[in-house]
């Protein structure tokens, strides 16, 4: 997708007015919120939808015969249908509500592990995965005697793509599962997952996509991608925390064993045997986060009121501006320079004069120090390893400073951050 060529018709001030938190002051300064990859802010509509559930129709779903239960059930299932349409799933029952991407991926690993993995099999991930798409596959591999394999990445932060000609060794006859992020949370790289999935499918490999960072930025069409499972969180796409989705292709979900027991996931229980409910309830044990689901539905409706490509183009212009301005700082190095990126910029500040430092002039700057001094100036960025420690190791850094943008951010805010960074660097060197 070439975002740079799209001319945005986009009113940032109108968008900003919908986010009450943007009027807050931090250390007496207007909040500049650039930590959207960790969690996005919420528009008033979403906050209202969640509280309206508690204020007017709070009841448990799918059980009661009373009016409130019916209303709550209808609202929840309307949200499921909204999400279905948004990702173009074939059926609403292919949309499973979880607590978030991490839970979705744990469900996937646990259930697919049981269904598919045996000794000698391989699970393929990439070198840029979030811990949430590494650790549970390690657990599954340990349990079934399978091996975890990793697609390497280039210095610019792009996958060394496995394919028959380019890297024949990555997919092997033993590969059973490909689990990969659509967009890297640390680098911003948009991975060519459609191509990868097509390659995997040819070999009968089940594909799982961590879409946490893609869903707020890109149109996602699960049928077009051809993936088997696709995971994402609500809270990174303007919805409440504690709610997420696992999309699954119906035929596969039917075969997958349940993950957690209890509540709505049962059909009939005797002490001898339990039969399971039909999709999606087979995978939704216990009382769901009904308010969160309703909030998620509202967040999707909010997004769809805008031209998603205009939003993406606006974020891309922020990224381009920030990249250009930040690179003017002596010693600043961007980690993740892929051709296709979302609005995420991750950087380190190396010593300006690597051959030797006179006193401390020109010394490198630790991301923690920078993050702290930016916070003092009202700017929220993320610092650290971003839950991608193997990736940090790949680039030989202990952590980075990451600014991640949303449609409500402005060029002026980028300028505030750049000026604040310069000030902090001056204080620290």
């Amino acid at each position, binding site marked *: 997708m070439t975002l740079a060529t799209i001319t945005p018709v986009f009113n940032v001030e109108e968008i900003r007015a919908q986010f009450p938190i943007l009027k807050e002051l931090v250390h007496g300064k207007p909040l500049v919120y650039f930590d959207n990859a960790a969690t996005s802010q919420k528009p008033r509509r979403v906050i209202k939808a969640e509280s309206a559930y508690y204020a007017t129709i709070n009841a448990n779903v799918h059980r009661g015969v009373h009016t409130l239960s019916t209303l709550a059930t209808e609202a929840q299932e309307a949200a499921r249908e909204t999400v279905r349409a948004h990702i173009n799933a074939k059926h609403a029952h292919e949309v499973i509500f979880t607590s978030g991407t991490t839970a979705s991926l744990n469900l996937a690993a646990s259930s697919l592990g049981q269904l598919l993995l045996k000794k000698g099999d391989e699970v393929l991930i990439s070198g840029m995965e979030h811990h949430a798409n590494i650790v549970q596959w390690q657990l599954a591999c340990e349990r079934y005697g399978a091996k975890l394999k990793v697609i390497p990445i280039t210095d610019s932060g792009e996958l060394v793509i496995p394919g028959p000609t380019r890297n024949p060794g990555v997919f092997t006859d033993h590969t059973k599962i490909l689990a990969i992020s659509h967009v890297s949370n640390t680098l911003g790289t948009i991975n060519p997952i459609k191509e990868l999935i097509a390659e995997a499918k040819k070999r009968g490999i089940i594909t799982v996509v961590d879409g946490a960072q893609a869903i707020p930025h890109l149109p996602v069409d699960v049928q077009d991608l051809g993936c088997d499972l696709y995971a994402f969180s609500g809270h990174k796409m303007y919805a409440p925390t504690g709610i997420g989705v696992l999309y699954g292709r119906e035929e596969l979900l039917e075969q997958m064993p349940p993950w957690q027991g209890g509540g709505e996931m049962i059909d009939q229980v005797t002490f001898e045997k339990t039969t399971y409910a039909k999709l999606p309830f087979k995978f939704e044990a216990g009382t769901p986060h009904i308010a969160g689901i309703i909030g998620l539905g509202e967040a999707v409706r909010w997004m769809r009121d805008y031209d998603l490509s205009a939003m993406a183009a606006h974020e891309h212009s922020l990224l381009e501006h920030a990249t250009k301005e930040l690179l003017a700082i002596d010693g600043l190095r961007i980690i993740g320079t892929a051709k296709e990126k979302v609005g995420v910029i991750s950087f380190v500040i190396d010593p300006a004069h690597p051959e030797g430092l006179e006193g*401390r002039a020109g010394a490198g700057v630790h991301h*923690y*120090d920078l*993050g702290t001094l930016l916070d*003092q100036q009202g700017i929220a960025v993320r*610092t*650290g390893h971003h839950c991608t420690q193997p990736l940090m190791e790949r680039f030989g850094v202990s952590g980075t400073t990451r600014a991640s943008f949303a449609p409500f951010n402005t060029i002026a805010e980028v300028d505030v951050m750049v000026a604040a960074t310069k000030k902090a660097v001056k*204080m620290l060197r």
Partner: protein
Amino acid sequence: MDTTLEQAQQEIVDEFAMLGDWQDRYEQLIELGKELPLIAAEFKTEENLVRGCQSRVWLTAEPRGETVHFTADSDAMITKGLVALLVRVLNDRTPQEIMSTPLTFIDRIGLREHLSPNRSNGVVAMLDQMKRYALAYSTK
């Protein structure tokens, strides 16, 4: 020691009270951090590492007579400045004094965020570790 631990804290509070805005306070911390390493290079080992989420702190402690002697360092400058202050306050004091005096100065010099439960800076972890050393030496 001529001053009590409480007096040492008060001295720091008084010093910082003369500094105006956030920039002056942080510049002071960074200056403290920029001073010579507080720990010899050979002690910057995995064993002496106190894990914060983002910045690393190294800490050593040894009993000296009735008191505990600390050295420490950090890879982040602001953390290092805070660590320098902690060492200044707690160094060469008796385990009883270290364990019984509440440390309030970081909050009082307007740097409360560094005592927050988010594990980003390692200061809280370092403080816990210093108290654990004090406890260990007090029971010997």
